[in-house]
């Protein structure tokens, strides 16, 4: 637990030891944003795991590669280098969608559900992830645990998949990445609040129950504030345990800066003190 707290409090200069990392293996971390943009959490985890020498499969459906790369450089990692040396497998959703949509593909494509009228499941996407994170057989363990990062899962609903299909996809990924390969999964889902997005609610609730750690970024209830961009709620869970056991939670407020995010206790923003 202290591993997560420490890493969040100093999001810009993350240092981790192998023992700390090992404690957090085989876990599903759910990132959630409500009334705000939680993408800073995605950037954080991407740079964190790359710096920790993990093999990362990033299903990046929202922005282009260069966007994540430029932000990653501010956080101290080069996605270009990581991709070239094989540490990072990057699925660029926007660019691939154009390829898939306008040209029939010879082989199954992870996003081929875009071409289909009634895609039943996300199996091609799962196969892609499994292939990307399969163990390397050359004797030496080049990278530490495999990590699947998804930005984000809500957009799959907008692209025609049902909540159940997305939950199934995560279930299969957990079986392979978390249980079989002792890796981690980090995925972002939007909380649609009161917009009555039922499919999204099903997805969010379903994932919340499976997660070991939930990081929820919320806009402030009082509206826009220049010095406090939002509130981050951290919830530690043990999905396998009965629910009578109390889950621990913490709340911080945060301000996003050019190259880092600073966290402080509620009401303790430097601007106010």
């Amino acid at each position, binding site marked *: 637990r202290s591993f997560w707290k420490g890493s969040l409090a100093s999001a810009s200069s993350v240092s981790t030891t192998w023992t700390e990392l090992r404690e957090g293996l085989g876990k599903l971390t759910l990132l959630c944003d409500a009334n705000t*943009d939680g*993408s*800073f959490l995605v*950037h954080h985890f991407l740079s964190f795991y790359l710096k920790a020498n993990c093999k990362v499969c990033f299903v990046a459906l929202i922005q*282009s*590669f*260069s*966007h994540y*790369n*430029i*932000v990653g*450089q*501010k956080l101290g990692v080069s996605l*270009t280098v990581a991709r070239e040396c094989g540490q990072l497998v990057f699925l660029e*959703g*926007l*660019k*691939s*969608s*154009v390829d898939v*949509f*306008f040209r*029939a593909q010879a082989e199954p494509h992870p996003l081929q559900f*875009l*071409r*289909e*009228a*009634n895609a039943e499941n996300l199996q091609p996407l799962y196969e892609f992830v499994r292939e990307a994170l399969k163990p390397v057989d050359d004797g030496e363990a080049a990278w530490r645990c495999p990590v699947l990062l998804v930005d984000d899962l*809500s*957009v799959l*609903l*907008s*692209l*025609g998949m049902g909540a159940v299909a997305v939950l199934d996809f995560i279930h299969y990924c957990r079986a392979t990445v978390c249980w079989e390969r002792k890796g981690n999964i980090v995925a972002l889902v*939007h909380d*649609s609040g009161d*917009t*009555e*997005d*039922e*499919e*999204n609610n099903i997805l969010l609730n379903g994932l919340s129950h499976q997660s070991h750690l939930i990081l929820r970024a919320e806009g*402030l*209830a*009082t*509206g*826009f*504030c*220049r010095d*406090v961009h939002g509130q981050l709620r951290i919830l530690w869970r043990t999905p396998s345990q009965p629910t009578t056991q109390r889950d621990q939670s913490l709340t911080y407020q945060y301000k*996003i*800066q*050019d*190259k880092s*995010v600073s966290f402080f206790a509620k009401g303790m923003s430097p601007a*106010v003190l």
Partner: protein
Amino acid sequence: MAAVATCGTGAGSTGSVVAAGSKNHVTSFQRRGPRASGSDSSYSRLVSIAGTRPSVRNGQLLVSTGLPALDQLLGGGLAVGTVLLIEEDKYNIYSSLLFKYFLAEGIINGHTLLVASAKEDPADILQELPAPLLDDNFKKDFDEEACNHKTAESNIKMKIAWRYQLLPKMEAGPVSSSRFGHYYDASKKMPQELIEASKWHGFFFPEKSSSTLNIEPCSLTHGYIKLLQFIQNIIYEEGFDGSNPQKKQKNILRIGIQNLGSPLWGDDICCTENGNSHSLTKFLYVLRGLLRTSLSACMITMPTHLIQNKAIISRVTNLSDTVVGLESFIGSERETNPLYKDYHGLIHIRQIPRLNNLIYDVSDVKDLAFKLKRKLFTIEEEKEYTLNDLYKRLHLPPDLSDTVSRSSKQDLAEPSKLLGPGCGVMAGGKKHLDF
């Protein structure tokens, strides 16, 4: 984003930042203006595209929306490779005006236009574009207007105002015409020779709907598939995606799509709550994919007030980069309220993208109103009234202050609900920051 450094090489795209692709980021200070070293010839060619400029924040290549006040609110302009979604006002009066400003700006800058509509023939839309205001003519007319308020040919509706917080005044007047961003006279038409000299492609859905599809049926409606194919075709044929590196001069493709989501496109999300919930969102996703891989910028107007399923609106917002909502006072009870003089409606900046950054330039100002005078569409912060101002406006003697303040406070409370928490009725200049 649009491939920048690789436009000349045709290799995998690295992004639209105005810098050599693989270089480390530099501070925005260094990015202003073309590099002296000229290390990348395609870079200098890109910077010199008419009507573009790099953002001072992150070097992103920007184009003007055709409304300098809106450019300012969006952090300098519309980023190339992104989608600007305009949520239409109720009668599509001001949103269609913004649409025309966007296209007019393209003509003035020599950009290629792609105009898509299911309602009006694009050729007719171009005929209706406003004329640009040139410096010397403008100054003369502006002085004239300051003196008297003759509105002989005015077809402007009653002006409404609602004033809230007292904040630093934004630049409300025009500056001299520069290469980036121009002012337009809504009462005059764009000169015919400028329209004819421009390069444009029109997509009028009723004309295209009969031709056959060469794509497998997926959940998109017929109209959206045809439109996507049309856009992709233009981008590819004219090399906006860098596919023809021999082209001598790069240019921007401005895509304008009108009334997207309306039944005229064959979509039923405005008619029923259980309409096709994936067609529009899938369209937006693939469109953004096309934009990110080309030198284009897109403005879409959408009648979101007609969409029955609110979940779709939130998904559409997530799939767009910049979202601006227009709310006109026409037909609302505010139209006849003397407190609401001077303004025609409200502008809501609902979303600004964080491109290549963890943060974005967030304006302190959240309450914005617009007004359309004969020549200018201006956007200003709503100002706050003290109670004394209110009494003066309503021309009431002071001894009625009790009853007046009660009823006007009720009026005040209503729109504050509209604008959400964080803004409220305050006497004096106190900032309402409840934190």
